[in-house]
């Protein structure tokens, strides 16, 4: 397999250098932009200029993309696979734009990795195929031959290796996600035994148990965390902690309880209408809709999508669409619309504008500027505030241009 690396801000800032030695089926590894000769030797990579890269046929390459500003360029190259490495927003970048386009990058990628556990857990609740590229274990889980030496892989390196190997073979790699959750879960559960009064550690133990589908065990860690938060005066935990219990109740199938817990945590009229709606669904046997909605209200979009996907009603498709929108799975949103799955009553003016803006964004990211602008301008005829998307898109393009220029300059 040939790999092409797209760093943000050049090789110097690339924080996954060792990973390049551990790539499976490693044939050739090219890095766009300047790389020091010593690093080229140490990591067995070759630098390639932007111009030269653009002249290559990347359809046989796996791309590793470290910045949302590469998305447009990489899309135009139609690589075989796209690996996204997500980072926290750098200090010199606009956070809102960075975060939004990082989500779009993650949504489009075949597999996603990140060294930040916070980003990792957020993404686990948004989509499949996410891997954590950091950990504490000193144990060795695998080996890779590299030049005349054998490199040892720790737990996350081995998991990442296995996942990428499966991906390269066109096989599913979800099982490795669960393996990673088991390892993280054990780590935090053991740590709770040592630090039982630490709110965050208990919370993380609860989260991983929840991800593993073990809500019946997760509950006690969550309430322990909740107690510690309150005892230490961190009172902004009604949603993050208490409401999370509703997701756990939904997971074990106790939907009545899930709704009641959610109802306790909301006060606005809009949220209370949501409670009534869910009660209605439950009365009419629409359990899956309730389940999915509870997940979504707890920002567990991944579980909501998994629950809704097998369903085939216009109601379920509409909820599915909402989940896709919130997780920036824009292509899936459009696909739903094209399938005609969404009922006409739901296709109100608001969602028409949304669709146009989504379409515009996709056109832009796939280098179809004319179509992009047309879609946005059409949207503005319905809703004038859609104009801000034009300025957002042009900001994105400016930032992308700036990054490309700095890479080109280095080369």
């Amino acid at each position, binding site marked *: 397999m040939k790999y092409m690396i797209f760093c943000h801000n050049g090789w110097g800032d690339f924080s996954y250098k060792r990973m390049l030695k551990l790539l499976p089926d490693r044939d050739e590894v090219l890095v766009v932009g300047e790389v020091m000769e010593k690093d080229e030797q140490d990591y067995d990579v070759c630098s390639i200029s932007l111009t030269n890269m653009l002249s290559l046929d990347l359809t046989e390459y796996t791309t590793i993309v470290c910045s949302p500003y590469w998305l447009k360029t990489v899309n135009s190259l139609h690589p075989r696979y796209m690996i996204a490495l997500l980072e926290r927003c750098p200090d010199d970048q606009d956070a809102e734009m960075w975060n939004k386009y990082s989500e779009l990058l993650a949504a489009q990628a075949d597999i996603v990795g990140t060294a930040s556990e916070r980003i990792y857990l957020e993404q686990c609740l948004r989509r499949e195929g996410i891997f954590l590229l950091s950990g504490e274990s*000193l144990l060795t*889980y695998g080996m890779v031959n590299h030049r005349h*030496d054998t490199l040892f892989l720790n737990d996350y390196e081995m998991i990442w290796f296995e996942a990428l190997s499966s991906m390269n073979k066109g096989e599913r790699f979800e099982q490795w996600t669960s*393996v990673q959750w088991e390892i993280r879960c054990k780590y935090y559960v053991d740590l709770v035994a040592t630090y039982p009064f630490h709110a965050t550690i208990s919370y993380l133990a609860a989260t991983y148990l929840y991800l593993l589908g073990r809500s019946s065990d997760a509950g006690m860690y969550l309430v322990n965390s909740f107690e510690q938060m309150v005892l230490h005066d961190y009172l902004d935990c009604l949603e993050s902690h208490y409401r999370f219990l509703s997701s756990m109740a939904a997971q074990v199938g106790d939907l009545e309880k899930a709704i009641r817990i959610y109802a306790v945590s909301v006060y606005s009229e809009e949220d209370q209408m949501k409670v009534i709606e869910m009660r209605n669904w439950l009365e009419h046997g629409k359990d899956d809709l309730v389940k999915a909605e509870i997940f979504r209200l707890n920002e567990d979009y991944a579980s909501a999508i998994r629950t809704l996907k097998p369903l085939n009603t216009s109601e379920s498709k509409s909820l599915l669409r909402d989940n896709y929108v919130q997780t920036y799975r824009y292509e899936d949103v459009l696909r739903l619309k094209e399938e005609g799955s969404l009922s006409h009553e739901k296709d109100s003016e608001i969602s028409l504008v949304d669709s146009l803006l989504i379409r515009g964004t996709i056109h832009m990211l796939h280098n179809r500027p004319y179509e992009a602008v047309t879609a946005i301008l059409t949207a503005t005829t319905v809703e004038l505030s859609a104009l801000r998307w034009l300025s957002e898109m042009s900001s994105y393009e400016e930032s992308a241009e700036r990054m490309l220029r700095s890479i080109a300059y280095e080369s």
Partner: protein
Amino acid sequence: MSNRDNIEKNTEHLAKRFTHLDHIGLIGLPSIDKVTIILEMTDPVWAVHSIQLLLLHSEHPIRIIALPGSLEFPSIQQYFAKEEPIEFWPYEAGIDRVNQAFVTIETPFVVLMEDRIMVTPRWLSSLIWPCMDEERVMIVSPMSSTEQFDGKLDLWFQSHADLVSYAEEHHPRNQGLWRQVTMLTGSCLLFRRELLDDVGGFDPLLRSRELKVADWCLRARLLTAQLALCEDVYVQALHSLKPRRGEKILSDEWHLFCSKWGIERDSYPLTSISELDISQCLIQPFISIHHEPVFITVLVVVSEGLDTTLEPGYPIQIEQSYSRIQWIGILIGEHEEHPCDEQGIWGRLDALIKVREVEQWHEALEAAFMLVKGEVITFMFDTRTYESDYVTWVVDFMYRESADVVVNTGHDIPNLEAQVHIPKEPLPVPLSLTAHRRIQEVGSYVRSLEEYYFIPRASLRAVYWTKGTEDE
């Protein structure tokens, strides 16, 4: 200077001379004999790597007995030259191969290790030296991440080169640093051959490696043997992302171990073992290393009235890869004299029971049970086909899962490693896919129009495995 000061000074001088001679390579090996290394293989990649390092870093002449850990373990002989001192033993179901390997040992020192272990330079001499320093030392272990107690050391190395650098610096600096410990459970142990004569082999009732080794060490200590931990040797260990067979300690196994050693059952996991007061324990019987593989009885059942097919039943696959089988046939109902007999099986049976009335099927089973000599009974019906390794698989699952009942849930799935799952409640299962131990009140048998069923007793350990048999 006092006498004591003189002795101390003297010892210091001798140590310095030894270090000097060792440094210039004039110190030979502690033993002139070959060392037998029994390597338990769990992963072909690990095994190849482990053996390569054994060949590279073992200063002594060695004989490696490589034992595959499962029926599906692939051959790795092609990675090694014929002249290398390695014996690749084939897998044998229904028996502890390590005990079998023990039988063939003639060298005074033996190493028992798993393929997860990567040895380091000078590892072997360093492990032998404590046996020379103290004659009661019987078992020696290096530091590693596979030890649970004093020997536990988790070190991270980016590469093998880093590991070797560490060993080359650490081992000579700490040479001779070893101490007596109360328990060893790791994946690399050196022991004296005579221990097998004194204590015997591993307890066949224990399955997980940790408990087997812990039990063995305790039995050795009961006979005043010493366990030594070499702090001057570190070996690296590989770990598996997914739990492997033999890693998990089963609850019934733990109860057995606790009863044996008078340990509180609630004190799982193993932390209590190292604090055990050995003087309060009962003397344990010697456990022979000579065992025969499991003897199994196959009940071949041809029953009238099952299913509505007009086709004749399948021939029974009597050509099985497993050898220790007693064959008993049961004919139920009206049949031609030798049904399904393309291979002439009926003449080769050890016993045959025939009942003309289909309603007497249960009595026929009872009669057959009275003739059973095997520890395990498995059933073959002419309504299914069975592969020639079917009995081997049954024995293998029964043995290594410590099961009381095994049920094949086979649909022919090629290239799929056999999977095991243990259901929460026992279900009625087709008798034609079942095997169970010959124990009291193992369960009940029922017959419907289409099928005979077995319902295991609730408290038994019933294991379901998946690998090709074909339904008709």
